């Protein structure tokens, strides 16, 4: 049974690294769901949070292949029970009709989202949470007309003092 795994990797923050990492995904045939990247705790480091669907061995092999790359400093699988996992989505919905508009406001409230932009025709919603929560919001509002969706992909950290970092 294919499962979802989350891997956190600390990489050199310089040109070409994303290419080399994504090249490896392709070459080794990994089924990547999402990758979220940004500057990490040090300016010259970036953290990649990779979500992969596959078997237990795939996740292990991915960690190994990542660690083998010279530009990857550390990679580890996160225990999803013991990690904070978040994704941010921006969802632009059709909102011309006042009734729809009020429904949207209601759902946003339930999902603890925020309206971040409004135009006469649309409303853009920001939702933060687990992948499932965002999926649920999108499927719920699909009937109103979803214009655009932008999702960051999941990003995550281990809870508590344990960490995937390098000592300077």
């Amino acid at each position, binding site marked *: 049974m294919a499962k979802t795994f989350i891997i956190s990797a600390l990489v050199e923050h310089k040109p070409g690294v994303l*290419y*080399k990492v994504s090249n*490896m995904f392709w070459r080794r045939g990994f089924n990547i769901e999402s990758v979220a990247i940004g500057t990490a705790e040090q300016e010259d480091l970036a953290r990649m949070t990779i979500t992969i669907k596959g078997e237990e*061995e795939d996740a292990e092999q991915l960690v190994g292949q990542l660690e*083998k790359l*010279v530009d990857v*400093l550390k990679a580890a699988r996160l225990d999803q029970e013991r990690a904070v996992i978040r994704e941010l989505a921006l969802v632009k919905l059709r909102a011309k009709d006042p009734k729809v508009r009020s429904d949207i406001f209601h759902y946003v409230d339930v999902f603890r989202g925020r309206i971040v932009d409004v135009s006469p025709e649309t409303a853009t919603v920001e939702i933060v949470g687990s992948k499932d929560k965002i999926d649920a919001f999108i499927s719920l509002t699909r009937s109103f007309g979803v214009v655009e969706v932008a999702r960051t992909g999941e990003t995550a950290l281990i809870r508590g003092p344990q960490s995937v970092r390098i000592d300077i």
Partner: protein
Amino acid sequence: MPAYDVLLDSEIRHILVRHEQSAAHMADGYARASGRTGVCMATSGPGATNLVTGIATAHLDSSPVVAITGQVSTPQIGLDAFQEADIIGIASPVTKYSFQPRSVAEIPTAVMKAFYIASTGRAGPVLIDVPKDVQVDLAEVEYPEKVEIRGYRTVYKPDQEKINRAAEVLARAEKPFILAGGGVTLSNASHELQRLAELLLAPVATSLMGKGSFPEDHPLSMGMVGMHGSKETNQLIYEADVILAVGCRFTDRTTGRLDEFCPASHFIHIDIDATEIGKNKCVEVAIVSDAGHALRALLRALAKNLTAAKDTPWSRKVREVKEAYANKIENSGKELTPPKVLKELRRLLPPQAIVTTEVGQNQMWASLCFRALRPRTFITSGGFGCMGFGFPASIGAKAAKPDVPVFDIAGDGSFMMTENSLATSVLEKLPVTVLILNNRMLGMVAQWQRLFYNRRYSAVKLGEVPDFVKLAGAYGAEGYRVGSMREFSEVIKKSLRNEVTTVIDVPIDPEENVLPMVPAGYSLKEVIG
């Protein structure tokens, strides 16, 4: 151009090739023969892309090569300038790492890191792509004493607990078997391997890349296992209760159908690359380590609870199997067959002689019939199976070991792919002998078409051209065509005396198969021939 200009005043020996692919193979051959890092250099664009086949060959066989390419000036990168190629992008999947220094100050560190990465851990090719303006620029630079690469970790020493477990399993084994791969040669661990085999009285078979890591005239040597391994070896390995695999990665060519590969055996796997553990084959004891370190640690651990026996029922069985095999006399009635020719070649060559092979039937005949007696004397493109490799690699090997005779065991098809290296061999005074097992065919493909496609020969007939004797003459090399075993022996002896570039054309029957053979996708027990 700027780099070549300063090369004139340096002590570095530059060997001019006729095609960049050959340059990469020569650097690779040099590396495999010597254990040192080989270097090749090419211009930007097409020069760089021509290197790629050779770089990929080195990559799959973990050979330490540093490839240097020119690049257009930094402001022009990305503008599709004349002779621009994104060689880092192109070569990324087949290099261990790559650098593109963007200023002259970055060059010393890039060079040092490149050699460090290429030659340590699981060795492999590293690319340095140098833009033109960076080549021309001048700056006061310092060579760092040593380099540190924070994301590059290499585990050399094994985990002692795992060693102890492996030692326990091996000490209890009644029918231990060792499967040695290219990692043994790469870590120069042949001596340790031999001591371990003798202590355990374990037969040793190798993968194609492992050939030479264990002397094939040793009583415990079982030659090669796999698709073209000997029948006896492929059967014997199934009887093993414990298989110790050292520096090999369980490729399909070695194991046959993997899920039927020795299902009853326990496996211990030593490899320097953690990602090889469990990639192809799940094992009981996995040891991430340099082969030499691990074997020495195993020997120490075993010394405590094992004393070498004179023989065991298992070692007697090994001896019987080998004797039965040796007594089988090949008698096809033909005068010149590849097995006869290659056995005679072995008889005439000193043990330290280096042979390279091309790819195809010639390669499998060589691995079956030519016994490698010392490490780094059998050089072949195993993983990539790159036709055209053997001849330039032999020239590289000759550059590394000028005092040792070097032979390329070739097929006509492969040799033609890089035959223009004759110019390099002759003019650079790097004499090697090319032995062409000439069947006027792309023989291995023809064999598959014969065996699996009902003799429908499609795109394999190469015809009677060129005349290899004349071709050799055209380059200023010596060419011979032999018609009998006696002539063959004489020509070999002559080429050993003469030390000039020699091409020997040995016409063979185009219908000749390399046997035994396990068809692709079958278990090793299902042998043809």
